[in-house]
């Protein structure tokens, strides 16, 4: 069973979560150029590596950020938006996903 750590509710099976897409800083729509805005809306960096992603814990309605290595599928840290991750949790996997039988 794959597991993921919700910062509010603790470790839960992946089936309780929904993937919300990659987290990216939005440029200021009033001051950004058309090129910057189009890049934000349409382009994605698909190179594997550590990405920040939105995840949603559906039973509690909690949106949070997960830092995940998309190459190894290892989650390095999960935290609420706007709250910096605990340093110890970024270096040590907090919710390692396990492959089911």
């Amino acid at each position, binding site marked *: *069973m794959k597991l993921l750590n919700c910062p*509010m*509710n603790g470790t*839960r099976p992946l089936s*309780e979560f929904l993937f919300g897409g990659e987290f990216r800083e939005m440029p200021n729509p009033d001051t950004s150029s058309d090129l910057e805005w189009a890049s934000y809306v349409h382009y994605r960096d698909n190179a594997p590596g550590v990405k920040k992603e939105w995840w949603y814990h*559906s*039973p*509690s309605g*909690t949106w949070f950020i997960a830092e995940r290595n998309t190459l190894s599928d290892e989650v390095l840290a999960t935290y609420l938006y706007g709250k910096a991750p605990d340093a110890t949790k970024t270096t040590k996997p907090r919710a390692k996903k396990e492959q089911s039988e």
Partner: protein
Amino acid sequence: MTALIKTTPVAYAQHEQKPAMGVHNGMEVALSFEGAAVEKTHKQVLGVTDVSCFAKFGIKGPKAADWLAKQGLKTPDEINSWVEGAPGTLVLRLGGSEFLVEDQIKGNACNGLSTFNQDKTAGAYQVARADAAFILGGSQALNLLSELCVMDLRDSALASNAVVMTQVAGISATLLRESLAGEQVYRIWCDVSYGPYMWEMLLEIAQELGGGAVGLTARFQ
């Protein structure tokens, strides 16, 4: 003016069991199913009771705890925990700043909370609650939950004041464990539209394990 009587959201799923219905707290609910003697046995083994009729009040926001305290209700300090906020009334803290208040069979705090005035209350927002709610009790209750929920809900894993938001039978639900007249029971809340489904799932497994439906009367005798 005639008072509006609601019907429990679970009624559709209970129709075949032909329960004796009665009104509690303005809602028509199943008072008994198979008679006191049978339901007493079900309670001991595995009894499922629909308590959707209990009055509920939801509130959220940074000032929600303060507002509840002003109404004389105790609130849990820790996230995802519950306390008896007033005699016969549960107060659940759902995450950081959201609360569910539910009157039990003899509680009446929710009546007072209905005076909430949004225009005069900054930082707190009422949340409409119409959950389907259940009580699950008996010696086989944990066996039932182990079939429907991946969480470890044994005493050693689930603190007595913990609120767990997880999936039960594949749908989002809120769970807690409490003592009811000396008996340990589990409370389950889910979205009202899933009420009949949840009732059917709980009852099907309860019957497999030797239990069954318990009406409101037998549950609180």
